[in-house]
């Protein structure tokens, strides 16, 4: 059983209009820190009071629970898209000392390296408007999506092992992509120290026909146009301009990642007891990074990360080919802007009180957002900082942001990952019908294709927080900066 730890009341203190703190009390080893406006804090406190008895853990309590884990450094953080997750809140960031810290399944999530990549086309909105129905049909036909969908690439177990080590490169070597795609993918499309022997046969068996599939839920492929540029120098560095058509792909490591999460939840549950780690929530089970169980999980997560990079790479290829079929664009003219991950834990060096420390940074529904000058950022972007791709909903807008120096100092170079849900899926399905949403968006000029009408209702724009507000909070806090806003033309829902 998990060791009970003393509960304490939650207090949230204002530091600035956009930064708030949960002071250290009880068993918290560090304070909690939120990026939020007054209204968000009011909502979170409301949830805290109401749901205390509802069986689920409110997001503020989750931030405080993470602050109690051994080896946590500086603060337990929550980005502006904070909402309750399992164990960690969504939008949660926790950095742990590599020597005496822990690794947690809940800090990564089941969809390991779920992320977003954005491809730049040489086309403008005017080029796409007249053909968007045809383009939507082509993309829907060519990019497998939805529950039970399978991809063109079928792998044997030995090939899966190779994919888990090589990530995007495995897919590019088979002709599905450009070499330069690697330069513009976080970690160049593969993290090191990925050990397939620590991934179960169950996980590999679930994956062998899912490479190059979108999946379902909140995953999507969107054709968008750049509506507004906020930061000209950064937009120039990223190679985007007003009116340009871009493509966003949001998906993750599919069933392989889910199974790694499932397998290690059980392993780390046993490890928590073995190492006597006090835990407030069963989902927060963890192991010392330096233990056998911790190392095995980390190297398995690395496989999941590489699997997701490979998956987005395969989908990029299918997308380029679909565009080439219905527009006058050659596949190689569609270039990768960047690929970011938002469900990961990674070993990173950070400056803590003037000293460089090696940390394991968990980002659960949060994106890495390195500022200018970091060696991990591609050379072409190093002057302005890493691009961040923040997904909105199918009816609203998405953003391209950049990392900042302040973000490096304040929150380990992290960012929001999306709008964040405001309403449960059950509630959304009660309120909307998928077919109505599709018609409504069509009137707004947005073409939706999906195998699941219920899925469309669950993902209705009204079920999410206002992405503009979420982005504004991060921008005003200075930890992320707005570069461009994009609007959807076509959305293929998983």
């Amino acid at each position: 059983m998990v060791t009970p730890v003393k509960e304490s009341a939650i207090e949230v203190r204002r530091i600035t209009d956009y930064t708030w703190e949960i002071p250290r009390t009880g068993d918290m080893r560090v304070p909690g820190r939120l990026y939020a406006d007054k209204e968000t804090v009011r909502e979170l406190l409301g949830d805290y009071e109401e749901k205390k008895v509802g069986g689920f853990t409110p997001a503020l309590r989750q931030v405080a629970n993470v602050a109690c884990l051994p080896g946590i450094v500086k603060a337990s953080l929550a980005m502006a898209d904070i909402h309750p997750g399992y164990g960690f809140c969504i939008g949660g960031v926790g950095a742990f000392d590599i020597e005496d810290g822990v690794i947690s399944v809940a800090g990564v999530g089941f969809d390991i390296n779920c992320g977003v990549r954005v491809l730049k086309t040489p086309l403008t909105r005017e080029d796409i408007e007249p053909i968007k129905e045809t383009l939507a049909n082509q993309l829907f036909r060519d990019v497998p999506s939805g529950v039970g969908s399978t991809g063109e690439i079928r792998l044997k177990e030995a090939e899966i092992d190779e994919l888990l080590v090589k990530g995007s490169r495995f897919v590019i070597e088979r002709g599905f992509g450009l070499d330069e795609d690697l330069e513009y993918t976080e970690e160049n499309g593969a993290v090191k120290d990925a050990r397939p022997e620590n991934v179960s046969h169950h996980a590999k068996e679930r994956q062998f026909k899912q490479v190059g599939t979108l999946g379902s839920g909140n995953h999507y492929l969107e054709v968008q146009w750049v509506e507004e540029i906020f930061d000209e120098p950064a937009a120039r560095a990223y190679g985007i301009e007003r009116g340009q058509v871009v493509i966003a792909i949001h998906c993750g490591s599919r069933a392989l990642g889910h199974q790694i999460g499932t397998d290690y939840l059980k392993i780390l549950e046993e490890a928590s007891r073995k190492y006597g780690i006090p835990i407030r929530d069963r989902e927060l089970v963890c192991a010392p990074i330096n233990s056998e169980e911790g190392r095995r999980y980390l190297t398995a997560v690395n496989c999941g990360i590489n699997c997701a990079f490979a998956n987005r790479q395969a989908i990029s290829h299918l997308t380029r080919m679909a565009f080439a079929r219905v527009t006058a664009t050659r596949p190689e003219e569609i270039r990768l802007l960047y690929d970011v991950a938002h469900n990961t834990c990674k070993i990173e060096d950070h400056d803590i009180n003037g000293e460089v420390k090696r940390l394991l940074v968990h980002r659960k529904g949060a994106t890495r957002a390195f500022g200018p000058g970091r060696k991990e950022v591609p050379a072409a972007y190093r002057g302005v900082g890493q691009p961040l791709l923040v997904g909105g909903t199918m009816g609203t807008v998405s953003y391209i942001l950049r990392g900042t120096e302040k973000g490096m100092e304040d929150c380990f170079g992290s960012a929001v990952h999306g709008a964040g849900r405001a309403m449960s899926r059950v509630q959304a399905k009660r309120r909307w019908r998928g077919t109505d949403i599709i018609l409504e968006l069509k009137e707004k000029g947005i073409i939706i294709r999906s195998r699941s009408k219920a899925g469309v209702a669950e993902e209705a724009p009204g079920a999410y927080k206002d992405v503009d507000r979420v982005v504004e909070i991060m921008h005003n806090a200075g930890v992320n900066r707005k570069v461009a806003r994009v609007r959807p033309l076509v959305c293929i829902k998983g």
Partner: protein
Amino acid sequence: MPYSYLEHISDVGIRAEAETLDGAFESGAEAMLNLIFDLSTITVTEDITFGVEAGDLALTFVETLNEILFIIDRHSLALTKLKAVQIKQTDGGYLFTGTVLGEPFDLEKHTVKTEVKAATYSGLSYKESEGKHVFECVLDV
């Protein structure tokens, strides 16, 4: 209905109850399968029997749901039902054996709703009171 859905903002909570432990496992499985498929579109032509073991009943319940998710992907099946075979106490906890029923997945025939990524330990509980066995847990969707 032997199961119901609980409000959870990002995921879906399920509550499964029955007079027997077998029944509560079966209800939990149906609650999950009903999120993934329109069960009325599935006929039964295949069955697969499996076993899972975990430290306590609540953990065994989660393991069972996760094993069903594995079977759906691994064998490309549309499943409609779980039949419990037996629940046995072991040295390490509990062993659940069950059979899932369904047919090969067919995009044309089956209506799919939502992908469930995993059953989690979040909001996980097992209670036995007034002759009812009740499980609750949050599914990551």
